[in-house]
């Protein structure tokens, strides 16, 4: 009994890696072009902006809350940025600062609504998801806008064998990991996610922690939007659309519990990798793209199911003896 419990725990912990391995072997067997270094470097390049955009979201989920607005914050910040640099010809460095700053303000607003006005985070960010996107449309219109060459030319800069955005994304995840495990803020974040009421009793400033998590979430959404534009050379009306759901799915696949207080930021890497590798592999074996959303749904479901199983087995193990 005890042994099977341990086995199940292990399986839930490392099951993802198994699954990942099987998926890779499967695709490699069918489509040899899949298992080339170039393909993987390209894939890492493609996913990098999204990874940056959702990296801060992981902090919000660690506190046990949720942020549906990351995609819209990215869109809004980029809309403001595009307006400044394309229409107003504002210098690049100022534009980039404003992008990041406005994204942080949007995140701060989320935090204030959740913590001061006390609206449920799900409702709050669902509302701001619509509102921020609407604001973005009002500023930039729903059109494709090429970004200035000075910025767009960065798209094929490489650091070693990795594209710049890939390197930046990985660096960000490592820094966030350090923050999570080696700073007081990080530990407080985990404490709030563990048990908010208890954390408050212990003197953790729970509201402040939660607001800061939302600000960080906004910050990286904005920061990521810059790399999104660099990669495509365009500001697009679809930027960040759907990211609210795929983002949360990736976070959960990466082992960060939706119940809060559990999981490592490093899980973001495995999470996003799993998500993209399936799509990339399917492209290589030439499956109809119409099947992707269905599979995405399936992956999200499996990840959530594993998350709830994990919690279930934990509470079973905890039965007082």
């Amino acid at each position, binding site marked *: 009994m005890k042994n099977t419990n341990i086995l199940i725990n292990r399986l839930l912990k490392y099951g993802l890696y198994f699954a990942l391995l099987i998926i890779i072997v499967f695709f490699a067997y069918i489509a040899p072009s899949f298992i080339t270094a170039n393909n993987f470097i390209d894939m890492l390049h493609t996913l990098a902006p999204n990874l940056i955009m959702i990296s801060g979201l992981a902090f919000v989920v660690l506190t046990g809350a949720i942020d549906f607005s990351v995609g819209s914050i990215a869109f809004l910040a980029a809309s403001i940025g595009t307006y400044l640099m394309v229409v107003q010809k504002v210098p690049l460095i100022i534009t980039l600062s404003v992008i990041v700053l406005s994204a942080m303000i949007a995140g701060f607003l989320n935090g204030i609504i959740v913590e001061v006005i006390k609206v449920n985070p799900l409702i709050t960010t669902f509302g701001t998801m619509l509102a921020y996107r609407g604001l973005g449309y009002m500023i930039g219109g729903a059109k494709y806008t090429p970004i200035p060459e000075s910025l767009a030319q960065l798209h094929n800069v490489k650091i070693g064998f990795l594209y710049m955005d890939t390197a930046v994304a990985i660096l960000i995840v490592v820094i966030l990991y350090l923050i999570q495990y080696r700073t*007081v803020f990080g530990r407080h974040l985990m404490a709030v996610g*563990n048990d908010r009421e208890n*954390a408050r*009793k*212990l*003197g953790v400033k729970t509201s402040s922690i939660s607001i800061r998590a939302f600000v960080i979430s906004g910050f990286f959404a904005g920061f990521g939007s810059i790399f999104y534009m660099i990669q495509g050379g365009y500001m697009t009306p679809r930027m960040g659309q759907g990211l609210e759901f795929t983002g949360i799915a990736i976070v959960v696949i990466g082992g960060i519990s939706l119940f809060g207080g559990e999981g490592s930021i490093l899980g973001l890497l495995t999470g996003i990798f799993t998500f993209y590798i399936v799509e990339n592999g399917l492209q290589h074996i030439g499956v109809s793209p119409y099947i992707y959303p269905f599979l995405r749904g399936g992956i999200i479901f499996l990840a959530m199911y594993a998350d709830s199983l994990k919690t279930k087995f934990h509470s079973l193990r905890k*039965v*007082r003896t």
Partner: protein
Amino acid sequence: MNNSHFKLSMQNIVKEFPGVKALDKVNFEIEQGKIMALIGANGAGKSTLMNILGGIHQQDTGEILINGKIITIKDPLDASKKGIAFVHQELTALSKLRIMDNMLINDYPTKLGLIDDSEAKVICKKILKRIGSDLAPEDLMEDIGPGDQQMIEIARALVHKPKLILFDEPTSSLSKKEKDNLFKVIKKLREDGVAVVYITHLLDEIYGLCDEVMVMRNGRVVSSGLIDEFPKDRIICDLSGEDGRKKNVTKKSFIVKDDVVLVVEDLNRSGILHDINLSLNKGEVLGIWGLMGSGRTELVRALVGLDPIESGTIYSICDGHKKQIAPHDLRQLVGLVTEDRRNEGLFQPMTVAINLSIANLKAFLGKSGVFIDRKKEKNEVEKTIKKLNIVVSSQSQQVRTLSGGNQQKVILGRWLQRNPELFFLDEPIKGIDVNAKAEVKNIIHELTISGKSILIISSEIEELLGFCDRYLVMNRGSITAEFPHTATKEQLMEASLSAREKGIMQ
């Protein structure tokens, strides 16, 4: 810090919550090297008073002085800066973090802005050693037992080298051995020159531990002084007012002989329950006694299917027909009152009325058979509130604003409406005040008169004594002894302890 003699006093403290005057001009004083027992029924205001000291609430009027100087306490962090530490009644564990995180959550040692884990470990080890605990700082909180978690609460309080420590019913989840250890630790703190306030319901605990006593009732201080001046009956008298003792129940037996209603045979759950056999008679109060961790709660949970069982049979006997019954189906027949009433039993944010009627909604359906007949519901709820003497402002008061005793009565009332033949009561009188205890026991008593059968678990052995028709002693998941209603405290204690030693020897 030892130069100045530490002394804290509170003067004319008033605190009002919506609708209640929780504290009415309370004066309080404690100095270093003293342990003061703070006694009072639930709702007497002792927790509120301590919450003010701990910075969780702020007083409306009145002053707090440390060594004669007026201070304000803004929040818990501020309290700990001023040398006041609070060990809460409910564990404030962050279960998925490590022990060291739980202890140092606000006091991490840092190096260049990053947490220095190895230094943190050293700090924690030192404090844990001071209270005689050999827990490893890097273990997860969820992997240690409630007794050890309580020790961590105390260890955490010591991080700030406090001059005053408030203990709010710290023994409610501890075994005898853990309790003794705790008392040792508290006495050692006194020797170190710490002032201790000890809140408890259990009068027996304070003798031999505390130096001073303060008794509160209805938001006021009734009496206070040296412990020697306060024999037990005086405290009880002060606690309950005049009529408190009249309500004590004298038990008469209402067992219907040879009318067994429930039989359990060879129930097993590996590692938790072993070969449980028991039977329950009509009109019987069957007490299950065992130390913390003996499997009492787990037995009840298994019987009603909240935990899985691996083998065993349960029979319910109705009108002479013996019928095998699955745990899940048994749950439908049983009025179940769980130990953790805060989380398992009650819908805290919902109203008293909804909480009372929830288990019996079918009975309130109107003619249509779809909608609930509010009038019917209201009448029935009103009847229950009256019958059980539940103190509420109205039916629509939120349950979470009620005192522990009244919450317990709501749970009981819920089942009374449904009128099951069997009741499983897990710690029905834990953490409620003297009067409420007597009232709850009265209710149980009346149930047996009407032929109901009761299975009751309590960790307060005195409360069980003379109240049950029969006792089963549990230990390490087995039933190890059975006693008739004449059993004494010593007999029960001995049975649970000696069996325990045997178990260890194996």
